[in-house]
């Protein structure tokens, strides 16, 4: 994998005349895990979509840049807010979708391992509609982790998971994505306090950076500094507009 670039998005976005977010600047340092928190509807998903080169319907006035000056296209993996699984493929084939779409040899072994690591070894042959909500989300996660891209954008990737699998998936992602530039949208303050090398809070006023705990991520979920950070974030969020 090449050196993971830092991301910067600066500008404002409108859809059909209505402002989605005002002038903001978002910085995600290269090779770091950045968490993005913020009220519902403030524009977090829109930012991820813009970074992924999507959002044709968004009128974005500003710049999306990587610090190495190269275009982002082809270096980004995105796990969107909805799972976007293909109903005609089983879990395994959904995980292999990226390879199939790019025409590279599908790594079935690796995909099976990945499914096993997200706890779905016994469900590899099920179609999405035979999976529970959390199982579908984990298939989508496995698919994203298969992508091997230096920049990974995660939009509420663990929202449908119970505490135990959530923690396991966080560990898995932190492990597999080490060295990548991650931008992770979440509503779970504990999650942000646990994973973030950098924590951003997006409000209508703009994007503010909040100091993460001093210990290196991923942190122990009930370590005092994690809990303190979580409480701090929660208070900020409860006050955010």
């Amino acid at each position, binding site marked *: 994998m090449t050196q993971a670039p830092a991301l910067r998005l600066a500008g404002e976005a409108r859809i059909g005349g209505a402002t989605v977010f005002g002038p903001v600047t978002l910085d995600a340092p290269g090779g770091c895990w950045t968490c993005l928190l913020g009220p519902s509807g403030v524009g977090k998903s829109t930012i991820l979509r813009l970074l*992924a080169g*999507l959002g044709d319907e968004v009128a974005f006035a500003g710049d999306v840049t990587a610090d190495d000056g190269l275009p982002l*296209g082809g270096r980004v*993996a995105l796990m969107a807010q909805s799972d*976007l699984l*293909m109903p005609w493929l089983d879990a395994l084939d959904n995980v292999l979708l990226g390879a*199939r*779409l*790019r*025409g590279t040899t599908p790594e079935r072994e690796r995909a099976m391992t990945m499914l096993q690591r997200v706890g779905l070894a016994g469900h590899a042959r099920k179609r999405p509609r035979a999976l529970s909500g959390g199982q579908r989300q984990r298939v989508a996660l496995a698919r994203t982790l298969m992508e091997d891209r230096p920049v990974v954008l995660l939009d509420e990737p663990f929202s449908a998971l119970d505490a135990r699998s959530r923690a396991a998936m966080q560990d898995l992602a932190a492990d597999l994505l080490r060295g990548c530039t991650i931008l992770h949208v979440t509503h779970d303050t504990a999650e942000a306090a646990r994973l973030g090398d950098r924590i951003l809070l997006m409000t209508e006023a703009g994007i503010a950076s909040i100091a993460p705990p001093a210990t290196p991520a991923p942190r122990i979920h009930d370590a005092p500094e994690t809990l303190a950070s979580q409480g701090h974030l929660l208070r900020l969020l409860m006050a955010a507009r």
Partner: protein
Amino acid sequence: MTRVFRIFGVILAILLAWQTLIWLAQMPRFILPGPVAVISTLWTSRLLIAQNALVTATEVGIGLVLGAAAGFASALLLVASPLARSVLRPMLVFSQAVPVFALAPILTLWFGYGIWSKVAMALLIIYFPVTSAFFDALMRTPRGWLELARVMGAAPGRVLWRIRVPAAMPGFASGLRLAAVYAPIGAIIGEWVGASRGLGYLMLLANGRAKTDLMFASLLVLVALTFVLHAAVDAVCRRVWEG
């Protein structure tokens, strides 16, 4: 078993409705003969009808396969290339807007009076519904999937094959079901244009000589053929899509 019973029930109902129609509307025999006359003709002319039905069935089979393939390919082309879309789509409408009878002399000029001009006619008739339904479905692929593919760095061709096509299969099936019903008519029209065999030939011959019994007997066989084809295509579509 219940299925078989139901089909028999429906057939019986049709025959009854037919007979009632004749009684009620005082249909003259030379416009619509009764079921009894038609079925007895069906029996006495069974050899003649069977021979001709075989010819038509062959034409329909070939036409259906080629037409479905051509429709499939065209819809893909239309989706893949905006240029093709702006040129081929009008052509597509054009190909249907021109009544086949006007094309008939041209087709026979090219394909002669053999089986191929009928296959061409069936193909022409099937082609449009398949293309149209499949194309519509291909254009309705949920945006999220296409965006996912884009981020994944998929080649356009692969997006087509791996995402748009599977997502559009129900639409293709819908078109195929239509095609299964139209294919026999296509072959029949082909036969009216020039043939010395086939159910269409037999019907026109019988009609021209007011042998309405024979005509409706051939018609009955044609209808049966269409039903079988429709049921078969329906079953295949169901199997493939839901399996």
